[in-house]
């Protein structure tokens, strides 16, 4: 083997190391669907709790939030486990996941307790929920260096302020608008972005 071919071989190895490290760190998880799912969950719970659904099952309005949250929490858990199978565990993924998991548990306990106890001051409920979602989106946005997600956090915080200073109608509108933009629209945008990243990943492989 000549010195030139040896150097070429060593260069190949350096490139291999760089490629594989980048491949290992490449995020292939897709979690944007969770935003859309929970956007729908909030709309279902709101519609139920305000009498938007008819039928005997939807008669008990105080059960709207506890039941909807429980059903969607279980659904999210099952779908997440199924979709993340065979994916490697990364410190980055675990950090982002832990923020959302902790928020999910907190939100679940809060909404379940508020619904069952009947202590449902609507404006305070919107303010607390929006603040929690703002905190989580901000933390996740900073970790992922994703300005759009941080912008969602600002929208949630604004909704929280509007809920405390506005009328009941104004606070409800602010909450519905925040859900639409920060859950549904942001989630769909994220899904499109993830699909595009996956396609690029496949073509580079």
């Amino acid at each position: 083997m000549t010195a030139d071919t040896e150097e070429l071989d060593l260069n190949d190895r350096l490139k291999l190391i760089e490629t594989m490290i980048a491949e290992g760190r490449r995020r292939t998880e897709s979690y944007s669907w969770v935003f859309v799912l929970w956007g729908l969950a909030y709309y279902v719970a709101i519609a139920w709790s305000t009498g938007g659904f008819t039928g005997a099952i939807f008669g008990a309005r105080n059960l709207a939030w506890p039941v909807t949250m429980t059903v969607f929490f279980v659904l999210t858990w099952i779908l997440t486990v199924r979709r993340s199978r065979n994916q490697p565990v990364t410190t980055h993924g675990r950090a982002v996941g832990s923020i959302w998991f902790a928020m999910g548990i907190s939100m679940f306990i809060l909404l379940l307790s508020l619904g069952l106890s009947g202590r449902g001051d609507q404006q305070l409920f919107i303010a607390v929920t929006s603040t929690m979602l703002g905190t989580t989106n901000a933390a996740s946005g900073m970790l992922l260096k994703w300005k759009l997600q941080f912008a969602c956090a600002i929208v949630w915080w604004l909704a929280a302020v509007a809920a405390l200073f506005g009328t009941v109608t104004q606070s409800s509108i602010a909450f519905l608008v925040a859900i639409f933009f920060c859950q549904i629209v942001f989630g769909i945008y994220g899904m499109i972005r993830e699909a595009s990243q996956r396609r690029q990943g496949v073509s580079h492989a």
Partner: protein
Amino acid sequence: MPELPELNPVIHGKLRLALLSLLSGVEEAEFTWLRSKTGSTDGNLGAQLLKLEEAGYVAIEKKFVQRKPQTLYRMTDPGRQALTEYVQALKQLLGGAIGV
């Protein structure tokens, strides 16, 4: 003239090098994920992972998830140290620069 470093023969194999590099970017990974990333066959992949395990560079954990067997691989501290030294040796040999 300064003495040139020797490259670690356990890591120098292309598939073993690829595996260690992959594992350096994750906390732990499944056999199937490593297979999909390297495009290797089950037999070859298993043999190379065994060599890395025998060298103490990779740790293996076998468990059942939803009644299905799962084999997880994780890079050990000596493995990380060996990869770092390997990269440094490569840098020295080539006189180039790379960050790991």
